[in-house]
């Protein structure tokens, strides 16, 4: 693992009707793109719960891509608009959490746009590679360690003089 050069891990959520089919088309057309993307199929981009994205980052994804139908083309009429709204809110939130904007990407890719799947995948992999690893699991581990230290410190502090002397004083008073 250590000798291997780091490459980004990107989780993609593709809607069944447009983008997943476009990725199939890219395959059938034998287009070539970077192998870093892991596609999870959902019926509609409207199904993407913001928690899926947060979970993906938390579990070690360096980027998340969401693919849906073009505006006005959603198989379910308007699921992609719902995703767009969530995306805009989430992007702000991620920024506050210290996750760069480019790590989350929303793309409209129709079933005919196999070429676009390739372009978007390659472009995103290049951008995320340039940004370097996000390493949320590592950061969580660090925070956990920090918390452990703090807890330990609190515990020793509580076990030490103030609490002790306090109870002693009380005993004395009694």
């Amino acid at each position: 693992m250590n000798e291997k050069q780091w490459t980004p891990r990107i989780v993609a959520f593709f809607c069944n009707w447009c983008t997943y089919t476009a990725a199939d088309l890219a395959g059938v057309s034998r287009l070539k793109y970077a192998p870093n993307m892991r596609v999870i199929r959902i019926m509609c981009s409207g199904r993407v719960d913001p928690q899926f994205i947060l979970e993906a980052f938390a579990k070690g994804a360096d980027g998340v891509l969401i693919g849906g139908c073009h505006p006005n083309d959603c198989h379910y009429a308007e699921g992609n608009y719902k995703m767009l709204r969530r995306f805009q809110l989430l992007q702000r939130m991620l920024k506050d959490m210290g996750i760069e904007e480019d790590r989350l990407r929303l793309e409209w890719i129709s079933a005919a746009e196999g070429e676009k799947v390739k372009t978007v995948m390659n472009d995103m992999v290049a951008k995320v590679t340039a940004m370097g690893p996000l390493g949320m699991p590592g950061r969580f581990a660090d925070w956990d360690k920090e918390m452990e230290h703090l807890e330990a410190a609190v515990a020793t502090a509580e076990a030490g003089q103030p609490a002790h002397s306090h109870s002693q004083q009380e005993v004395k008073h009694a």
Partner: protein
Amino acid sequence: MDNQRNEPRIGFYVCHCGTNIAGMVDCPAVAQYVSRLPNVVLSRDYKYMCSDPGQELIQQDIREHRLNRIVVASCSPLLHEKTFRGATEKGGLNPFFFHMVNIREHDSWVHTDKQAATEKAKSLAHAAIHRVRFHKPLEVKQVPIHPAVLVVGGGIAGIHAAMTLANAGKKVYLVEREPSIGGHMAKFDKTFPTLDCAACILTPKMSEVGAHPNITLWTYSEAMKMEGYVGNYTVTIRHKPRYIIEDACVGCLECIDACVYKQPKFFDEFNMGLGKRKPVYIPFPQATPQVVLIDPETCLNLKTGKCKKTCVEACADRKAIDFTQKETFSEIKVGAIIVATGFKSFDAQRIPQYGYGTYPNVYTALEIERLVNASGPTGGEVVLRDGKKPKSIGIIHCVGSRDHKTNRWCSRVCCMYSMKLAHLLKEHTEAEVYSFYIDMRTPGKGYEEFYGKLLDEGVQFVRGRVGEVTDWAFTKEEEGKLVIRVEDTLAGYVRRIPVDMVVLATGLEPQADAQEVRRRFNMSCGTEGFFLERHPKLAPVNTFTDGILLAGCCQGPKDIPDTVAQAGAAAAEALVLIDKGHIEQEPNTAFIHEEDCSGCKSCIPLCPYSAILFNEETRKAIINQALCKGCGTCVASCPSGSIEQNLFDDEEIFSEIEGVLAYE
């Protein structure tokens, strides 16, 4: 069935797909990796999982190893999910205990690094193993369907599809936006390569359609809006006013003779403007239905209100003319829709160097079809616009085809119809005919033989793309003629060929409003703009929306035999659907856990199908399973997490996320 509820016992299969997958992914390594994952009882790699022995293997393993979950890593689920669900069911499990991993379209076919591709396959398989543990047994929903079919477009494709269905005893609505059915084929003179007359084979079919008791024919009408889902579509049809009561008109055409305009003087659409018509007209003699119509743009009475209305007088007690007609709408319910909206001929003015629209003696192929036609504007006499007979004719192939500046595709029919026109023009005028081609494409029964015949007839074939058509004469012979400049790539020099008449073999394009129609019927378009079929080989008439089928040139350029074959196929697909009486719906609907629902109503406005209702008594939301289409938008937005979607549940997707990221 008992073992389905116990601890998951997963069987994993990775398919080589010959070398399609195994050539890029190390399948045994994937199988070995998966075998070490929790709950995996059995992990195999096999040459062709979709083959009978492959499916048999799954069934046998389910019985022998008491498997209760199946994961297959092979091609796209859009291709073989059904196959493997079937195998799982035959093995005695609920079919929804199966999950599919796409390592062909999404992996082996798109990557070049074997190691990376294998890693990707492993992590995708890992995700599926994680996910399948949460799968639940589900029942396929059966919904009754409407046994009628709507055919949109009354060209040869629509006509053939409608006839096939109607002859099978099904109710068919045939909607055509022009005043008559027949489409492009009605304009043709002869058909290649047999040279039988287009009208002779088409018009009997047209009148059959008009008279068929099972067909409701609506011409001058358009399908405007579609709602519903497979088996239960509601379509709104707009009927444009033709100012004639169709049922009252007997097609005597006396009103046309009686019109205050003594001579026809308006642009005749059917004859590409080569002929003229009156404000009240019938598009062509064999039009179906045999009903006239009045053009509101040119009719004196409709334009100014001041007219002697001699047509009404001529119509007399038939009283078929109604100047007060307005557009009307009707709503129909159908189970399936066949879209056969055809093509548009390439606009030759987009290539200015060929001079169409500048030089009067440059024609498009469709105009020539009308000129050589006995019922055409000249009665079948081929004459130039000044009335002279052409002594030499040049036919230019690939106008708006195989051209990076306009359309990149081959329109498939132009080589053949150019040769047909070459033959007909030679026959009609005895002129010298030159045919300028890039490659001669004759793939069809009897097509190459037709080419041979034309060579024998002495048509001059020049291989080379024409540079320009000009009237700039260099020599005396060229004066007063159109000069075709072309590099003869067989002779190896640039030639100037003076001719009297130039024919442009224009290519086939998607209809101008193809994008609108695509949206209306929830279809996709390919990059060229033609409607996209579900699978280029195995589902050529289906679209991605169930119950919407394709026929003819709206799906891509094709000749009449192929169009008719495809229309038959589309009709058969529609029959399969409606004869069954019901459809099976993917059980991926959402439902609400009442105990967790807080009654916040967030989900209700999000549902595009109004499938979520609020129960005022219990203060909880309820999802109507019959209306839910399974998009999952409400699931993603429920603040209390009380909505679950079958097949795409939160825990399934979360475990999938964990799985794809679990690789080392």
